[in-house]
């Protein structure tokens, strides 16, 4: 008979160890899954985790880590603030799309003007778009007590339809021979989020992600607002007693996570992706939820988790082309990671011990 015993206080050691244990468990069970799919598990895991970093074409893949990791980290940092306070924005995908639409729209409005201020305007517009989309559930929650989980998620589907609509209408490339999709921002220099150092993968979005990590770290550890965020998540009643205004906290947490997701979308559309198109979004907004939890809602943890998740994306693509591993297998692999993390998190707050037999 096994019993759980609550620790007098959370174990520090386990809170660092659980993500690692979860990654290891995912490798084992992921390997098992790959084996069932008829692939060599060792080779598959090796390809995913080794090839992008140290393989033959690492010079190509390493920059890609930054490109894939930046939006994940940027979004996950925003989400983690809300998650810590028990405010569940799970519609980052929609906010990401709206950021991209607003950002690209702002840039394209100036086309073909050449000016230094166009890109900064796009940054502001992108953040605004995401903020706007996240503020809808925030306002509804504050004003009517509406569940933010459901509203933010519903707005993802609405944003996807908006994306389709602007790809076919408002932002459609007039010189695009009738194909859906906007002009390519990569070929519009004033609006292009180009690599800062050629071939490094380093673009403004990566810079923004690092700034967000530092910002979140200072906020949570050194600032009253961050303390209030943590307090609200730990004990909402105590937070109210401490003088936290729940409505303002909801507006702040959802707003900032929306703005960061919007920024991520804007940097993506003006850089790596280049254009607004129907299939512009690839699920970063949802994967970022995994990143946020895997990083234990801690800014530095999220940075590491974002890197790891980017690795599985790129490694997954390599495994797809080299080993014929289905794309969905990587999705399952990422889902498993979250599962194991949540399961092993038990060890942070509880001790497991074998109890004497129940018959006394």
């Amino acid at each position: 008979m096994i019993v759980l015993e609550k620790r007098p206080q959370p174990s520090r050691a386990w809170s660092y160890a659980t993500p690692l244990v979860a990654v290891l468990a995912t490798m084992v069970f992921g390997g098992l899954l790959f084996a069932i799919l008829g692939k060599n598990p060792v080779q598959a895991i090796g390809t995913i985790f080794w090839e992008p970093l140290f393989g033959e074409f690492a010079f190509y893949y390493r920059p890609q880590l930054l490109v894939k990791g930046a939006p994940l980290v940027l979004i996950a940092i925003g989400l983690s603030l809300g998650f810590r306070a028990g405010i569940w924005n799970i519609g980052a995908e929609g906010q990401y799309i709206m950021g991209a639409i607003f950002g690209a729209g702002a840039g394209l409005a100036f086309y073909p003007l050449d000016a230094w201020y166009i890109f900064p305007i796009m940054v502001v517009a992108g953040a605004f778009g995401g903020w706007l989309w996240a503020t809808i559930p925030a306002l509804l929650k504050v004003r009517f007590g509406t569940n933010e989980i459901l509203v933010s998620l519903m707005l993802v589907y609405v944003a996807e339809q908006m994306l389709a609509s602007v790809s076919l209408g408002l932002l459609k490339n007039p010189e695009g021979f009738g194909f859906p999709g906007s002009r390519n921002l990569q070929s519009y220099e004033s609006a292009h989020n180009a690599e800062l150092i050629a071939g490094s993968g380093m673009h403004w979005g990566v810079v923004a992600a690092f700034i967000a990590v530092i910002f979140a770290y200072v906020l949570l550890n050194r600032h009253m607002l961050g303390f209030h965020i943590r307090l609200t998540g730990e004990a909402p009643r105590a937070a109210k007693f401490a003088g936290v205004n729940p409505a303002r906290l909801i507006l702040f947490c959802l707003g900032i996570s929306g703005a960061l997701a919007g920024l991520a979308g804007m940097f993506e559309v003006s850089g790596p992706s280049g254009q607004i198109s129907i299939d512009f979004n690839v699920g970063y907004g949802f994967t970022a939820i995994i990143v946020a939890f895997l990083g234990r809602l801690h800014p530095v943890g999220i940075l590491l988790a974002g890197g790891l998740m980017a690795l599985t994306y790129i490694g997954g693509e390599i495994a797809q082309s080299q080993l014929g591993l289905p794309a969905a297998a990587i999705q399952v692999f990422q889902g498993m990671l979250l599962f194991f993390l949540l399961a092993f998190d038990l060890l942070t707050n509880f001790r497991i011990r074998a109890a004497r037999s129940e018959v006394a």
Partner: protein
Amino acid sequence: MTIPLLSLQGLTKAYPGVVANDQVSFDIGEGEVHALLGENGAGKSTLVKMIYGLVKPDSGTMKLRGNPFAPPEPRAARADGIAMVFQHFSLFDALNVAENIALGMENPPPMGDLASRIREVSETYGLPLDPFRTVGDLSAGERQRVEIIRCLLQDPKLLIMDEPTSVLTPQEVDILFETLNKLRSEGTSILYISHKLEEIRTLCDHATILRLGKNVGECVPAETSARDMAEMMVGSTLQTPERSGRELGEVALDVSGLSVPSPSEFGTALRNVHMTVRKGEVLGIGGVAGNGQDELLGVLSGEIPTSADAIKFKGQAIGKLGPTARRKLGVLTAPEERLGHAAAPDMSLTENALLTGSVREGLEKNGFLKWTETRSFAEKIIEAFDVRTPGPENAARSLSGGNLQKFVIGREVLQNPDVLVVNQPTWGVDAAAAASIRQAILDLAAKGTAVVCISQDLDELMEISDSFAALNEGRLSAPRPTTGLTVDEIGLMMGGAHGMEVAHV
């Protein structure tokens, strides 16, 4: 020699770090009212949970009428005639009385039959109850009746009652005792758990006294003085708090015409509350739980906003101010619920010191936190109030109830409030800690702080307050000087016997 109804032999139960029960043995005779006496944390609850099948003993045996008795679960205990009325009621607010009772029975009859049996039993024992009322709308006393009737419907041989009078007005206590005496005369045994000595002397035939998990003595309460029992229970002579004579100053807190709806569904709205508290005065507010105590604290702390003029601090209207602004002015509060309201369980004591201390102790600058100063503030509380903990980096929930209570009260006291409002300052706290908390409150008043002490412990209120008022269904009685108040008068201020009009017109 007759065989006792229930015989306990060497019951032992240990939890990590604490032995809740250590070799406890005693007998309960047929038709006997047996008291189990002890302080908070003496192991009374664990012991009865073993009898009721909720907890399994590590060692030791029980015998029911001479036969081995080891209930694996409450269901089995109930089948053997053991029934229990819980201290924190095991009731379901959103369900009605009949449904609640059905849940506590093995083979409940159909709802219609059950309802008529509930009426029948409730009339026989003088406990009127409507089977179809929603339990969440009942008063504390009525809720207890639901539990008692649930037990009586099963014709129990042994009825366990855990601190039954803590939620009753004095008049309701009388009615309960009538019911219990009637049960005794019908041959039902009762295991009566309490730390209130006078009650035990009035009601019980035998008493077993527990201290720190051990059986430290037995007595016949009617032949033993309350003082002797108290010393067996506590293990040492107790100090009563000292009250120095003092002058009352000008009015510090003035509440007038205060009415607010409750923020929670089954809460109590405050209706037209008036009170004034002067500098150096301790106003005690009594009343049965659930009559608006939480709401009153929320209104005074600033968690529940009201119209500006309803609350005045030294003449300034503060009804619309939030908790932080009120702290800045000097109005501090300490809520009843330690874990989750007064303190965040998983946060360190340092962080919990910051929780209310940031404004008055200057623990932040432009929103940025000063952790070093915060840590010293936490250390100051720990030292001044003798909080037993390895250090301020420990989580609040790692502390015992008494120690955490000393911490949260100390946190407010050390900030030199002009007005301090406390709710249940010594609830679930051992006698020594309770005494030191009461002393701290009195010392604060002596320095000129206006104190409002909300409590359900009438002895405590009589001990520390200068004037007394009672909350009853959200209304506050007019405060009266404590000296010279009789128990009957207090009982009437608390609303007499709730919902007993049918039986006692």
